[in-house]
């Protein structure tokens, strides 16, 4: 028996894999991936045939379902789901994991996309994302390199209700705002560690924290004086899930794995090791009271990507 997993670092650690292999006698191989883009290229390129399971966030998941690259779960095979946090127990309440009554993804971990600020440099503590545009912080802001998310959070900052479905006028409005943001931005980063690195070697005051708590954890570990805040306008939040490919070879085994990682012990370890919130054990990731806006599939990813390219290319 063989299980082929495509995952982010931290979602399928060696010790878990070993334990699972011992339990099931299966042969598990994990290929690690660095960006959403590669997951898509890899899964789409092989028409889902190269892997059985892959980790993907709920927003991205939609296109895989659209393209018929996923297979729905049989929830009866995943008894541990009943142990999940209330928020994630009833999948009908979780935006984006179901389509036409079928479950296409099982939530694994999540994080909010908040704001990290240097407590020595930013006083008083900010509450709104507007602070990113504050001319005081010119050249001291780190932003994330992703058109979809940036449009969404900027829309939220501008007070737009549905940040995932923007009208063309709203798009233009957001675009202008983002071009303005560039004045303050030192660099667009793509990974948490990269942000930490930049922070360590440069004068950085504010970080738009795509990786949320995990990023804060890494930074405080490294001795940085930083704090984290979820903006009052509402913080975007991502939710990573396990999805099964259309080319899954051993559906049972795949479901066994998903069930396996939904254990409390593993959830705990995941949070400890990565700093992300897991879906089975409560973790400090996002306070229950914080206003989380779960990422959704946006109106036109292509358009956002193109416009983001335009923004980056803008002088």
């Amino acid at each position, binding site marked *: 028996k063989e299980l082929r997993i495509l995952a982010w670092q931290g979602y399928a650690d060696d010790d878990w894999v070993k334990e699972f292999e011992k339990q099931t006698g299966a042969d598990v191989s994990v290929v690690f991936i660095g960006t959403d883009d*590669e997951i*898509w290229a890899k899964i789409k390129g092989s028409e889902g045939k190269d892997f059985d399971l892959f980790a993907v966030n709920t927003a991205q998941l939609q296109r895989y379902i*659209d393209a018929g690259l996923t297979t729905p779960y049989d929830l009866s095979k995943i008894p541990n789901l009943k142990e999940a946090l209330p928020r994630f127990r009833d999948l009908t309440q979780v935006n984006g994991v179901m389509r036409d009554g079928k479950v296409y993804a099982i939530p694994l971990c999540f994080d909010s996309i908040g704001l990290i600020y240097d407590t020595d440099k930013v006083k008083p503590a900010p509450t709104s994302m507007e602070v990113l545009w504050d001319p005081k912080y010119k050249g001291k802001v780190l932003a994330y390199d992703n058109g979809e998310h940036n449009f969404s959070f900027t829309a939220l900052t501008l007070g737009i209700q549905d940040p995932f479905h923007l009208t063309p006028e709203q798009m233009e409005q957001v675009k202008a705002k983002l071009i303005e943001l560039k004045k303050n931005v030192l*660099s667009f980063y793509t990974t948490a560690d990269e942000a930490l*690195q930049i922070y360590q*070697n440069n004068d950085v005051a504010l970080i738009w924290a795509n990786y949320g708590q995990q990023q804060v954890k890494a930074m405080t570990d490294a001795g940085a004086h930083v704090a984290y805040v979820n903006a009052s306008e509402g913080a975007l939040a991502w939710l990573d899930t396990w999805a099964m490919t259309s080319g899954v070879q051993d559906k049972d085994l795949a479901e066994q794995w998903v069930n396996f990682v939904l254990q409390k012990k593993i959830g705990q370890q995941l949070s400890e090791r990565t700093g992300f919130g897991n879906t089975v054990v409560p973790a400090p990731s996002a306070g229950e009271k914080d206003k989380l806006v779960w990422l959704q599939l946006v109106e036109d*990813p*292509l358009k956002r990507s193109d416009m983001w390219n335009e923004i*980056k*290319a803008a002088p």
Partner: protein
Amino acid sequence: MKSAAPILTPSRLRDLTMATAAYILPVVFVLLPLATFFVYSFFSVQGVQLVRDPTLLNYRRFFADEIYLPVFLKTCRLCLEVAGLTILFGYPVAYLLAVLRGRKKYVLLLLLLVPLLMSYIIKIYAIRSILGGTGFLNRFLLWTGVIDEPSMLFVYNLNAVLLTLSVLLLPFAILPIFLSLERIPRRLLEASSDLGGSGWQTFRMVTLPLSLPGVIAAASFVFVLALGDFLTPQMVGGQSGFTFGRIIYSQFGAAFNWPFGAALSAILAVVVMLAIVIGARFGNRAAARGSSL
């Protein structure tokens, strides 16, 4: 074989088998995959579905849209600068290697190649922590008192990309230049001195022109590798690190616009190929003259 043999002679047959053998792998593993991909460049997408109606839209868009051409040109300029910089620094090193004799030469050469085996992601990380606003370099310069406040010259801008790519690709420039320098007959340099040329004049008027084929080969290696690198601009380029490589890359992920990506790649390939063919012509001409003394 120019014999006018009308039938399939044994040697003809052998030629044919040889040709077939030579073509088979490149055709199967390069032409076939890339040809399908090239066909994609005439398609379009709707959502996550490919629309297989042939169209030239993707190509038109490259020229019509105001961001692609400028970014493309900017990227080309950047990569040319990288090529220029690596040659600027690689040339003296290659020259020294060519001057040295015996074992020293080969030890030095090997030592120059060793850093290639340090994973380049790790290297970029290291370079980044050296270059940052409060990185090692700035700290060092502050400490020595060369500067009073952190220099932003190499912090998240094109300069940083330029420098990083140059450092990463330097060995690819040194080797071809070294090989071409080594082929210049010592006699020509003596002849130049004999005619009264100073060391510098000899270098400028004899050595440099004769090493041009190697320089061009080096430049094309570096240029192509720099063009294909999408990570470095991303990681040290800050806001300016937006290159054509990244545009292409983005078409294959989030955007899911493979047809457009394919079109952009085709354009890139054509331009690079042209550059290389022109470069090679230039180099060949110099080499052809050099070949028979």
